[in-house]
């Protein structure tokens, strides 16, 4: 009899703790999730950019989701340089063909993948970008070649709306 009573109590104890834990988690989650991007931040997800004035060898920097996006109209030399690199020489191997579908236009997040600084144009050992914060060198395809950054600069989702307009996001 007494043994059975103990078991009932154990069950109640475990069940109460379990329900309590689920309840606590249900209350904690909204407290954590409120810090994630809110609806107004998410609403600013895409931008259209007029690129008609951009001449070869120049870069346009636009702000998208609070971050700079580089739109580079590349010269033929830059394209050749980017496409002639061997995959073995890359820290984060990616073909230039995959990064710039239309070889003349390179669209990427202007954010160093090390700690988020904005790299400088036409600088560094690979004629691409150079991050002044901790010395990462990127090539003419925005691929990391030297320095502490682990990955190539990110290519955002974008499309050509028409010959003169790019939609980012």
């Amino acid at each position, binding site marked *: 009899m007494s043994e059975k009573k103990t078991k009932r109590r154990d069950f109640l104890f475990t069940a109460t703790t379990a329900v309590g834990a689920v309840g606590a988690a249900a209350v904690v989650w909204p407290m*954590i999730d409120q*810090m*994630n*991007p*809110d609806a107004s*931040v998410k609403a600013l997800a895409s931008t259209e950019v007029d690129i008609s004035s951009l001449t070869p060898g120049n870069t346009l*920097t636009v*702000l998208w*989701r*609070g*971050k*700079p996006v580089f739109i580079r109209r590349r010269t033929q030399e830059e394209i050749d340089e980017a496409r002639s690199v061997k995959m073995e020489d890359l820290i984060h191997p990616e073909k230039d063909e995959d990064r710039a579908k239309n070889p003349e236009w390179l669209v990427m997040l202007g954010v160093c993948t*090390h*700690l*988020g*600084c*904005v790299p400088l144009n036409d600088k560094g050992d690979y004629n691409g970008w150079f*991050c*002044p*914060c*901790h*010395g990462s060198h990127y090539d003419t395809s925005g691929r990391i070649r030297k*320095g*502490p*950054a*682990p990955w190539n600069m990110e290519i955002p989702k974008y499309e050509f709306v028409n010959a003169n307009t790019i939609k980012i996001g």
Partner: protein
Amino acid sequence: MSDHDYRPKSKVGQWFNDRLPLLTLANHLTDYPTPKNLNYWWTFGGILTFCLITQIVTGLTLAMHYIAHADMAFESVEHIMRDVNYGWLIRYIHANGASMFFLAVYIHIFRSLFYGSYKSPREIIWILGIIIYLLMMAAAFMGYVLPWGQMSFWGATVITNLFSAIPLVGEGIVTWLWGGYSVDNPTLTRFFTLHYLIPFLILGLVVLHIWALHVPGNNNPVGIDIKKPSKDTVPFHPYIVIKDGFALLMFMIVFAFFVFYAPNILGHADNYIEANPMVTPAHIVPEWYLLPFYAILRSVPDKLLGVVAMLSAILILAVLPWLDTSKIRSAVFRPLYKQFYWILVADVLILGYVGAMPAEGLYLLIARVATAYYFLHFLVILPVLGFKEKTLPVPLSITEPILGGSPNLAAARNNESKIE
């Protein structure tokens, strides 16, 4: 300690103390037996309490005028500097107060390292201190973001991006910290909230830190256990109160020098340019008190390992009581440790210097050697030294070396047997 026997003299006092023994606490704090040989390196606990209170008071008054919004924060800080009555003074005290706080805490920490104050039975005091130090760094970092200048913005970007080094969940954590896809208004408002909260957490931990200190009592320059109270101790009031007060005055002269004569010397000119997400300043440098750790971060060529090395450099301090195998506390009686101690001091200063320089060429090489030595000191030198070092004879009491004999033979014997 005669805490339990204490009885207030007045009837009202007795009535109150029976219901809330605050007067017993006050009596404990006044009579608290303190080693009589404490030197000026021991006055920094009091100085740090002063720094914390200064930061809380000036912070509260600044918060009455500051606006935590990405569009208005920079202007509201200039408004404080130009329009608010004595706003310039309050802000300069608060900004330089952070530097003074760290100056004092580094002296306090290195005093512990020299005299072995982290060793048994004071491990909990030490660990609480390390947690306070971590919270201080978090508060200082978030406070630096609030003026929303270029260094604020890019410092915040770089430091929060450290979390992106965590495999798999890193990017998600960074987005969560930002409340967006970059450092922006949601980041600023939450940093302001946390910057306001942390000093009060520190205050609570300081109470625990002092409580834990009052269990075994202060360590002392000789580093031996003493009988309390005895001829080796003096009451906290008036002896230590006066000594701490004098040291605090000296400290306040240095503090006032910075506030009134060089209020911007420890800051960066770039932070008087409003935050611009399109342009990174040419040379991002954290505040001086974080430079040694910044040098460690940059000396490792891998992102994740760099972050791990930087965090380990701080967290390794928490296990220091177990890494140091020597039974002798004070470096006064440890001829080899004393030398390694000063090499460590030099090593940290060198790390601080190269942390402020560009991470290239000779600076990078020096940073790497200094980083390696930092870890070597804690992970190899300290554990081995405890077994190899031939220590000097430790006195039986604080009084013995001066007067001969010992006022408390029993305690002294106890010490002696522990050493063997």
